[in-house]
């Protein structure tokens, strides 16, 4: 029998808010252990939660960015379970009335066709503390770091729409881009600001039954999510093929062995409405205020870039995945740089140079205006490409403008035909062998001769003019 997988995703995203969700403690889990704690997030007797306005706004922005519908009424519930990482015996989460419902993301499927995957709902919740088990020493101890306890999270729950690892991975890539776009989170699976659980079941292909699912956790990259899903599909298909029952449980992805390992039975504790956090009522005006803060989302921006600057869909799509890069590109366009060379120089020269220097695009001294000046010198044939690369390197070190550097270093390209004719004549006279080769039809010789002229001019000759002169003289 042929099986098909049914996959749903639960994605936890840590919001990059200044404070925790229910108190004013800094939202910096990486600080010295237990530095960021207070009577509220440690749940001392008498503590009362106060919902952070910024967290609500960021979460709402994230929902709108994913096309979801904010609910006029949402509320927090207590997810009851006892564990030392949970300071009050329950986690505040929105189980019954989530912040938003609906929404979805369009991706390109394996066959290159666009396909939309639906989001069931998005809710807010608080993170738990971090447990550190020190097993060395005379007495093994468990330590708890409450810096992360109460950190603001949203959980995005998808519909079980995915039928392959590829679809899930593409969805996560686009989701990550969109959440970064609205500025709600860095979404790093490596550092844990984005965590993905996959719920996977299988069924005979072509049926619409929903079978017992298995939850897989602990993937710390999108690739691992794909690998874990692929592994789990194989494992379950083999099990069902061998007439074994699939039981509801949680498995962990082991990235070294590249297998999923059974962790525990899936525990579903009760969810009781919380009496201390007030019901969240969002007015249409408030929602529109948040919507007005929504940046242009990547798909919309890509479409506009194609329309305004004549980029291909691929180019525009690639450019739009990173709001900083897209913004830089648009600033270049605004400074009068042509689209194709602008895109080319941005992606092949500037971005690698910035990365090499471990800078952020938004903070690099080579601002769009300075870079535009350089590209315009290139467009006017004032310098050639080699020189431009060299000047770019110097622009990272000095505050001088591109034209200034060119003038100071005498980099200006020689396009004056009379001056170049003299150099060309010298080279032709000095290289009779290469001239003979060229005349006998060996194309390579022309490149050699151009190189010789460039060298003789100290790299400043305009290679286009040199080529014309050589062909004219020898042809």
């Amino acid at each position, binding site marked *: 029998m042929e099986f098909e997988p049914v996959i749903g995703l639960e994605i936890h995203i840590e919001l990059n808010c200044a404070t925790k969700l229910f108190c004013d403690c800094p939202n910096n889990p990486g600080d010295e252990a237990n530095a960021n704690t207070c009577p509220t997030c440690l*749940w*001392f*007797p008498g503590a009362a939660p106060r919902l952070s306005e910024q967290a609500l706004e960021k979460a709402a922005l994230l929902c709108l960015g994913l096309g979801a519908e904010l609910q006029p009424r949402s509320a927090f519930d207590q997810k009851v379970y006892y564990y030392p990482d949970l*300071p009050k015996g329950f986690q505040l989460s929105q189980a019954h009335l989530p912040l938003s419902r609906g929404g979805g993301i369009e991706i390109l499927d394996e066959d290159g066709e666009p396909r939309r995957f639906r989001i069931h709902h998005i809710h807010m919740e608080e993170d738990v503390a971090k447990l550190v088990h020190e097993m060395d020493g005379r007495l093994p101890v468990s330590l708890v770091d409450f810096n992360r306890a109460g950190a603001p999270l949203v959980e995005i729950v998808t519909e079980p729409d995915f039928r392959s690892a590829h679809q899930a991975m593409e969805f996560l890539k686009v989701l990550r881009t969109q959440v970064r776009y609205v500025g709600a989170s860095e979404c790093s699976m490596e550092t844990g600001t984005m965590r993905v659980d996959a719920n996977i079941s299988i069924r005979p292909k072509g049926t619409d039954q929903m079978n017992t699912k298995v939850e897989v956790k602990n993937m710390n990259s999108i690739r691992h999510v794909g690998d874990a899903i692929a592994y789990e599909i194989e494992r379950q298909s083999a099990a069902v093929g061998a007439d074994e029952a699939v039981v509801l449980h949680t498995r962990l992805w082991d990235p070294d062995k590249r297998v999923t390992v059974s962790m525990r039975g899936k525990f579903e504790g*009760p969810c*009781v409405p*919380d009496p*201390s*956090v007030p019901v969240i009522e969002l007015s249409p005006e408030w929602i529109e205020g948040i919507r007005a803060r929504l940046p242009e989302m990547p798909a919309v921006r890509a479409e506009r870039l194609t329309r305004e600057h004549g980029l291909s869909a691929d180019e525009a799509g690639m450019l739009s995945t990173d709001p900083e890069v897209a913004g830089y590109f648009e600033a270049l366009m605004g400074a009068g740089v042509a689209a194709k060379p602008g895109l080319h120089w941005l992606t092949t020269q500037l971005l690698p140079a910035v990365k090499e220097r471990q800078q952020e695009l938004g903070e690099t001294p080579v601002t769009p205006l300075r870079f535009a000046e350089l590209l315009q010198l290139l467009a006017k044939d004032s310098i050639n490409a080699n020189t431009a690369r060299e000047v770019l390197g110097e622009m990272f070190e000095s505050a001088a403008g591109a034209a200034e550097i060119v003038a100071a270093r005498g980099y200006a390209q020689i396009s004056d035909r009379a001056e170049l004719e003299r150099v060309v004549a010298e080279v032709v006279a000095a290289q009779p062998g290469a001239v003979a080769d060229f005349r006998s039809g060996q194309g390579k010789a022309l490149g050699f001769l151009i190189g010789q002229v460039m060298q003789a001019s100290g790299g400043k000759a305009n290679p286009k003019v040199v080529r014309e002169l050589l062909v004219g003289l020898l042809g």
Partner: protein
Amino acid sequence: MRFTALDDATVVQRLRSAGIRICGMTGMSEFGLGLTGSSAGRVVETKHADVELVLDLMGESRVAAVRVGACGFKPSYGLVSRYGVIGLIPSMEAVGLLARQPRSIRTVLGCVAGADERDFSMPEEPVPGFDEEWTVPAGTRVGVIREACSGLTPEQLTGFQQGIEELRAAGCAVSEVSLPDYPLFSLVHKIVGSVEAASSTGRYDSVRYGPRAPGAKNWNEMYLGSRGAMFGTLVKSYLFQGAYFQFENYAAYEDACRIRARLLGQTQRLMQEADYLVLPCPPRGGAEEKSALEAVYAAFAETLWANVTGQPVLALPLPGSAGAVGGIQLMGPRLSDARLLALGEMVLDRRKGDR
């Protein structure tokens, strides 16, 4: 519990900044639930203090007051900040006030009431003016709840009827009103209250503070050992009851929430028939000394209504031997706290004048 709070509760802060002298602490029952082991009312009775603050989860401040012939008041839900209050039932509990005179309650309540940025569960509603002179209009309608009198002894019933006569003599239009669902208040309090209590006490896990039971091999044993040693019998039964509804019978909890909403609606309708509702306040409390949960519910059967609906309620002692007869409860609509206290003042002033 070997734990010192880092901060004053909002009520304490406000009392201090209003220049009110805090002269001692009332010994409460465990988490304020019931009156076993509680000294509530003692200092007001002995005139060592003018006002006493007592947590009111199901009527403790009112029952304790009438036992000693004093007045007990539970403010409207959300009128007084619960920041710093160590309680059990966030949606029902309130800081109750005990005093010999409703006037003292009004003065202190005026100091502590009002929005607190540290308690987000408080509604942003205007606080009734406690400084204003409230007069009780003639013909104020008072509705006596028929179903609330069934559990009284003949002596208590006579005392209660005397209290109603006082209201009539003061110019109130007294009528009998009926709420057939009256017994459900107790049921709702049982289920919703204990579920909230089970959650509220989850924090006492001995991980971050409090005594930790020695010898545990893992965290689970540590929880069981520490909590087992820490909680008293009554609270344990209460938490078991809450955990039962959380984990084993959640449907009953959902039903109780729906019934609570219905009772709220029925109460609001009754509040259109009458300006105030009247119930007895038998001087039971302490009957739960066996620490049996059922005894606690029996002791507070007449007082827990206002906790379920969040209304303000004032218990006045009845004339005569208060210890045996108990008191009368006057319950007003939400945020009618100031005029409710004015009504109480008028009744007691007239009583004093008669003597």
